[in-house]
């Protein structure tokens, strides 16, 4: 009955998104580059947002400590990373010459280590605090999680210090990908090369209409691994028994219990998936931004919430969609499109979009209505 009006709003939002993409692709200088950057950042946000939305849906509260679980995982990964970079050549002498291979292997190990660390701390917190508050009002849980956020941040500061830290990864040369009529012979070329080619190209005037996108190997890995993990999660939710149970629990806790689902076990699964993916997101943030600090988690949290709300809080697919939209919008709107906006205001863009969404369609793009008052 209400659907008529709401659907119009929904399609209007979709229209705005599509129009924004078209505008970014064709009317913004270097637009495609910023859109690709946005998708890359959005795919990192996706990994972080999934945990947020799972705990919201299953445990029914907004987990403010999620950003700090993310950064805790990232710091555990940091320690594992530097340790492995030192140890791997000793264990495997044949790797001693291959420096980059060692570093990549160390990053893989670090992600596993970081994920284990984050899952451990998330399950511990759940066991010590949240599990005792399951019957309390949702807001008590939110206070508790806000406290745990500060606790984790302080813990990170106490163990790893307050300064900037970086993973053991070399600065990498970007590969650039150029599309368009590069040699002016009227045909469309697709061209990829390393930085030296970019310099060579710079010697000659840049062809009209060429679209240039640069990506480093780290950025490629970020994009591909994030999307792969999200796909795996989708398969997990859709086809495994645990995944189905999780969706059942999210839909109706009591009904799911009646059918014999072990709710506590599924809740542990939700924490593990959320925290593990968050830790990997933290590692990617460290690799892409170059540094992590204990405050990085809190900084990202706002964008994560914006993504979750944009997509519809409680819906994993909504969170993925919202993360992409937020990532692209942050990269497209700040600096390139509107030069007056300081690039520091990226979180503000996310926040403004979130507020707008709450005003026009509080349940988000893919969420279900729960408006009251």
């Amino acid at each position, binding site marked *: 009955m209400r659907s008529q009006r709401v659907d119009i709003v929904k399609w209007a939002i979709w229209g705005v998104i599509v129009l924004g993409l078209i505008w970014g692709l064709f009317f913004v200088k270097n637009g495609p580059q910023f859109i690709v950057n946005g998708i890359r950042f959005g795919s990192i946000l996706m990994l972080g947002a999934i945990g947020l939305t799972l705990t*919201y849906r299953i445990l*029914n*509260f*907004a987990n*403010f400590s999620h950003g700090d679980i993310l950064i805790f995982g990232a710091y555990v990964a940091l320690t594992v990373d530097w340790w492995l970079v030192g140890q791997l050549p000793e264990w495997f002498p044949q790797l001693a010459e291959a420096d980059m291979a060692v570093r990549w292997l160390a990053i893989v190990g670090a992600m596993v280590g970081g994920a284990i660390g984050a899952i451990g701390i998330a399950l511990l917190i759940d066991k010590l*605090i949240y599990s*005792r*508050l399951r019957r*309390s*009002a*949702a*807001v*008590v849980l*939110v*206070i*508790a999680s*806000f*406290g*745990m956020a*500060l*606790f984790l*941040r*302080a*813990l990170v*500061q*106490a163990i790893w*210090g*307050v300064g900037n830290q970086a993973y053991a990864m070399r600065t990498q040369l970007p590969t650039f990908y150029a599309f368009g009529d590069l040699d002016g012979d009227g045909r469309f070329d697709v061209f990829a090369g390393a930085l030296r080619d970019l310099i060579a190209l710079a010697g000659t005037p840049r062809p009209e209409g060429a679209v240039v996108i640069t990506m480093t190997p780290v950025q490629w890995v970020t994009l591909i691994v994030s999307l792969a993990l999200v796909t795996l999660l989708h398969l997990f939710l859709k086809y495994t028994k645990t995944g189905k149970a999780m969706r059942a629990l999210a839909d109706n806790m009591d009904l799911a219990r009646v059918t014999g689902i072990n709710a506590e076990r599924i809740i542990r699964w939700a924490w593990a998936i959320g925290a593990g993916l968050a830790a990997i997101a933290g590692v990617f943030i460290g690799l892409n931004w170059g540094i992590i600090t204990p405050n990085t988690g*809190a900084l990202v*949290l*706002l964008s994560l*919430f*914006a993504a979750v*709300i944009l997509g519809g*809080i409680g819906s994993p697919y909504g969170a993925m969609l919202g993360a992409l939209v937020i990532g692209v919008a942050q990269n497209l709107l700040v600096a390139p499109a509107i030069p007056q906006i*300081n690039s*520091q*205001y990226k*979180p*503000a863009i996310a*926040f403004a979009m*979130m*507020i707008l969404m*709450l*005003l026009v369609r*509080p349940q988000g793009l893919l969420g279900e209505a*729960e*408006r*009251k*008052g």
Partner: protein
Amino acid sequence: MDAAILWAFTLSLALPGIFLAVRKAWVILAGIAFLIAGWGGLIAIYVVQNGVSLREFLRQALSVIEGFAYLPQIYSLLLMVVSLAGLWVLLTRTNRRTRWGAFVGTLLLWSFYLAAAAFTGVPPDRMFSFLSAFLIIAGIYAVLTLGLNIQWGYTGLFNIGVAGFFGVGAYVSTILVQDPAKMAVGAGLEGFFATYFNQPFLVGFVAAMAASGLTALVVGFATLRLRADYLAIATIGIAEILRLIAANEQELTEGNRGIPNIPQPLHECLVIPVREAPPCTLLGIEIPRFLEPAQYNWFYLVLVLGVIFLAFLALERIARSPWGRSLRAIREDEDAALALGKNTFRFKMQAFVVGAVIMGAAGSLWAHFVKFVDPQIFDAISRTFLVWVMLIVGGTGNNRGVILGAFIMWGIWSGTNFLNDVLPPTLETPIGRIDVAAQLFGPIRIMAIVIILELILLFRPRGLLGEERVTSTMIEPKELRPASAPESHSHPPASKED
């Protein structure tokens, strides 16, 4: 002049005690009479016996340990602990005699303290500089916590962007009151806002409240119709955005450098100037200057206590009004309140804005006391989180409780600063050198406070005092208040929202 200041100071200290302890007019009068008599006598002795042997004796006795640098602080801390214990008894015990005992005992202790200061000649300024700063800041936190109390304690609105409203108040008040002449050359770039307005403190104070209220209006409009979590997310977001604005809009806020030398209210009218200054007139009457620069904080303390007093009275009145009852009804069961025909969105919005206005006032008081603002003012830990802990420790929904909580938690928070002086600055460990001050101390303190909070949430969710059962101004409070609040009222955040 010293005597007059002593008077003002003592009265100001007695003020919270009086209004917290009793509601009857004759008790307040008796307290004031007691003060007049006690202090009259003390000052008489001080004036008459100037230079008598007792004074010399005490001076010599104290001079032995006076070399110990922390004497005034330790003395003050001790006094504070005892005073807080007195306040605690005053607020928690219903037995009239016990309460009177605590009240008089605390006052006597203060008398002893001041007498010792007066007789021994240890400069009162030195004795009080720590204490007055402590009380002012704790008082500002108390105002902030009162603001949060009407949002969360009364209405169940989950605001974790307290720092945002506080910071807006501080910045708006600063920009309006700041004197451009006091800024360094080159500060303040061109642009429409590149000016400081050099207005009186009161203008800044009111504008701070208005700006904070306006911010709340915007945030509330988007989120108050929704589940409580949305408000939480939006408030934490607005605090972060405001911090970004403060850090980046250099022409408005000087960015990360911050704004120094913020004028203090009536400072030029009360403090004896170093150089000759034109007389300060108010409504044609010349005001004599009588404060040493170091004594100015006493005036500020009175100001802060006055604001607490007004906010407290207003909130107590609200708690007993139909409006306050509606707020609590919304907190307990919003759907039921809605079904009874209450416009819950409107009530929630009003409560949210009123709370934010009080927070803005606290921000203004802070800026003009510290005389410096920078984006650090939006710090989530020392603003938002500490305020929440104060509220929950003191007793959500209980105005006296939250004032008590503010003083206790600020005592713990600032008291632990002394540990930093005691601990070694760096520590050699097998895994490398650890910078204790920067790396260990702060985080461990935060972790300790979080543990306190989580323990309270788990084991004593109603806080130290718990919520009072109040319904109306028409009913005597004592008829309703049992020895301890019943458990059914123990759960302030009882909004079951699904």
